[in-house]
């Protein structure tokens, strides 16, 4: 079983609230969940929708065909009915002017009014939905009790009960396993990773779709002992994070592409001053303001080359919420180890979709700070902020901790002490010292995820949040077609891990890059780094997330 329900209406009608309640209740019932959110950059009106997919099996993508639609207005039906399965259903209020055999016009509004408040409209619909699937409404009741204060909760529970009585069951499904999952989106997973990594300072300027990271952290500020500072602009945000990191705390900033554009000079500052820094860049379609609430993977080439001059950096493309948590922690460890900026690259799709995963395992989380205080406590060894050594990684101490030491960070080219210099020799040595760190970093890169057949006819290449959709697409293709498919999905993306790529590209007859951008940026980076050329591209750049079905269909077309 695998069902897909769309809930749509205008901004401000409460779809997000009812979606969160329904998905959580289905999760509690034991289903695996994958919910996407498609919202416009406005507070009222327009057309917003969410799609809740639930299944007994692990699911890693949204899909196109709809089992049902809950329509808060007629527009929702006309927009989405072409995706509705023949035997699917539509629930809407009786006032909605639309005709279709699958449409169940129900007195949702009237029932809500009778219950005591028109705003419980969504809960009436949720009750009806649960009845259609014959799922016990106790799961909804439980979630409502947790979400609202008692009075509001009981009103909504009453609404659910009344909604349940409005329809007859369509499906008879048995409840799967006991629920042991968490239900989380990418940005909340990043935020938990930030806390688990022991980060103590997060400065940012609000920018969709990165803001929810700051929102979560702000809610946990006192509990987690993390300062969350809303800066006056992105330039201040990143410079503050660098200042805090200089002082010795783990520090981070987060933004989207436009804000990152403003941060670029300071990214180079972290590179030059060799101050550890983690930056979350949650992509949305650009250039300029672009599509603020939508998704794209078009900042890859920008992020790997941003800022003038040459300095080591790492870019990790986040694949899914689980990966987002663990990679955020790893980003801090790598930033500290090499004293470099590390960018974790997400996008709106990953930021906002919620899915069921196993709770994060903190036994896998280790905080490694790489301070060198021990070597300097007795005052015998002279501390030099930019000491040149074989690894290129200079020692690091907390300024103010050891009497007689001076931590001097400089944005000008500097000598080992951090003093400004224009010496040709020192410049060359410092440049090489910084770049040596990059070579060392390459030794601990994580190779891309591999899905599918070992000896593929077609090798798909993708990165970041396309992990889930590509994984499912490859599974379907191998099941339904005579050809053999495989996919490599990059998480570590700069420096580019090339071992698996070099191995796999020789085996495949056709190589196709699948990306959410218009120019095939991963293919371009791969070509530049390895000389490997993709034969075809599947690219999507309309701001909407590519589903496993779209990838599947495109491949059926091209092959």
């Amino acid at each position, binding site marked *: 079983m695998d069902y897909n329900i769309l809930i749509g209406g205008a901004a401000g009608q409460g779809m997000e609230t009812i979606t969160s309640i329904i998905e959580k209740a289905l999760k509690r019932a034991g289903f695996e969940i994958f919910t996407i959110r498609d919202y416009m950059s406005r507070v009222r009106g327009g057309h917003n929708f969410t799609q809740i997919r639930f299944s007994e099996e692990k699911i890693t993508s949204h899909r196109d065909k709809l089992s049902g639609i809950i329509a808060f207005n007629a527009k929702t039906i006309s927009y989405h009915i072409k995706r509705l399965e023949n035997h699917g259903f539509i629930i809407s209020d009786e006032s909605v002017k639309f005709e279709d055999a699958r449409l169940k016009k129900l007195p949702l509004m009237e029932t809500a009014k009778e219950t005591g408040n028109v705003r419980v409209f969504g809960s009436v619909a949720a009750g009806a939905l649960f009845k259609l699937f014959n799922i016990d409404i106790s799961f909804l009741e439980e979630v409502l009790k947790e979400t609202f204060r008692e009075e509001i909760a009981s009103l909504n529970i009453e609404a659910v009960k009344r909604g349940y009585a409005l329809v007859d069951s369509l499906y008879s499904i048995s409840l799967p396993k006991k629920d042991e999952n968490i239900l989380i989106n990418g940005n909340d997973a990043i935020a938990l990773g930030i806390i688990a990594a*022991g980060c103590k300072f997060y400065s940012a300027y609000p920018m969709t779709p990165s803001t929810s990271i700051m929102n979560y952290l702000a809610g946990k500020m006192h*509990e987690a002992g993390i300062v969350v500072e809303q800066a006056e602009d992105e330039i*201040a945000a990143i410079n*503050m994070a660098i200042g805090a990191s200089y*002082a010795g*705390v783990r520090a981070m900033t987060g933004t989207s592409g436009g804000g990152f554009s403003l941060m670029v000079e300071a990214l180079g500052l972290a590179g030059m001053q060799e101050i550890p820094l983690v930056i979350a860049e949650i992509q949305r379609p650009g250039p300029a303001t672009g599509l603020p609430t939508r998704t794209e993977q078009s900042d890859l080439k920008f992020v790997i080359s941003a800022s003038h001059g040459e300095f080591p950096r790492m870019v990790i493309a986040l694949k899914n919420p689980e990966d987002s948590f663990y990679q955020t922690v790893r980003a801090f460890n790598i930033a500290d180890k090499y004293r470099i900026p590390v960018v974790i690259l997400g996008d709106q799709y990953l930021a906002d979709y919620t899915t069921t995963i196993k709770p994060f395992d*903190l036994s896998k989380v280790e905080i490694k700070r790489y301070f060198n205080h021990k070597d300097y406590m007795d005052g015998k060894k002279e501390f030099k902020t930019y000491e040149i050594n074989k690894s290129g990684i200079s020692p690091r101490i907390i300024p*103010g901790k050891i009497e007689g030491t001076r931590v001097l960070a*400089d944005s000008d080219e500097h000598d080992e002490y951090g003093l400004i210099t224009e010496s040709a020799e020192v410049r060359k040595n410092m440049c090489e010292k910084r770049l040596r760190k990059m070579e060392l970093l390459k030794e601990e890169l994580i190779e891309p995820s591999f899905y599918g057949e070992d000896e593929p006819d077609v090798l798909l290449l993708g990165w970041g949040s396309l992990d889930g959709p590509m994984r499912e697409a490859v599974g379907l293709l191998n099941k339904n077609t005579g050809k053999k498919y495989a996919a490599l999905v990059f998480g570590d993306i700069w420096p580019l891990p090339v071992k698996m790529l070099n191995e796999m590209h020789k085996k495949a007859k056709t190589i196709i890059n699948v990306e959410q951008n218009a120019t095939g940026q991963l293919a371009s980076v791969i070509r530049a780094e390895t000389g490997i050329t993709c034969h075809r591209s599947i690219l999507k750049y309309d701001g909407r997330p590519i589903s496993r079905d779209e990838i599947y269909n495109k491949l059926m077309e091209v092959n």
Partner: protein
Amino acid sequence: MDKCTYKTFETAWCPGCGDFNILEALKNALISLKKKPHEVLVVGGIGQAAKTAQYINTNGFCGLHGRAIPPAAAAKIANKNLTVIINTGDGDTYGEGGNHFIHNIRRNVDITHFVHNNQIYGLTKGQASPTTDLGHRTAVQPEGSINFPINPVLTAISLGAGFVARAFSGELEHLTSIMEEAIKYRGYALVDILQPCVSFNKINTFSWYSKRVYKLDDSYDCTDKLKAMEKAMEWGDKIPIGIIFKKEMETYHDKVDFLKNKEPLVYQEPVSKEKINDMIREFA
């Protein structure tokens, strides 16, 4: 602790530059306040003044142009035991970094800010700064600056800063005592220090300032905000120097319990795994 505590470095400043006296006053103030070099962090942006951190053996952070204040404020938030002092210029503070100047006053982190205000861009060789007088001719303003200057002291007071002073680099003892007061002040303290630029400002010279500045005496009440704003507007033939406005205020740290009542943030333990597990369980 004596004069030798703070070492002397070779500088890139022109002979006769006001920066020498400002650096001297800074060292004197730190010695008088018994601050050891490793307890102090000097922060700068870009410019001749911003190089101060290079020429004193405290910790130093030489950042980007206009961006001295954000890392300074953040370093103090991270480690309240550090004495954080910004030394940077009028262009860096009021021009390139204007937005940070405004908003860090609102933040009121306990840091001290010495602006070396020579009313000109020195490092880029003599263009108008935000404090250059109207009509001042430069290579870029050949017919004289047509943009009127900002008044940093008045601006800071009006934005709500709790400690605002003006000083003159030619008055070493007076400057030192104001610096001491500024460093001791709990909260953001701004000292706008008038200084000659011997190479690029031929109008606001040492003697130009010397003839005009006068020290505020005990009869002046620096706690009256309206009077302070009036005093801040005095500019021309007579320029007052001294603490123009001072008021006790809650600092950033005062408003965040775990910053105020615990050890410095940098020495606080990461949150326990039990607590993180509780947070994870909220998603169950």
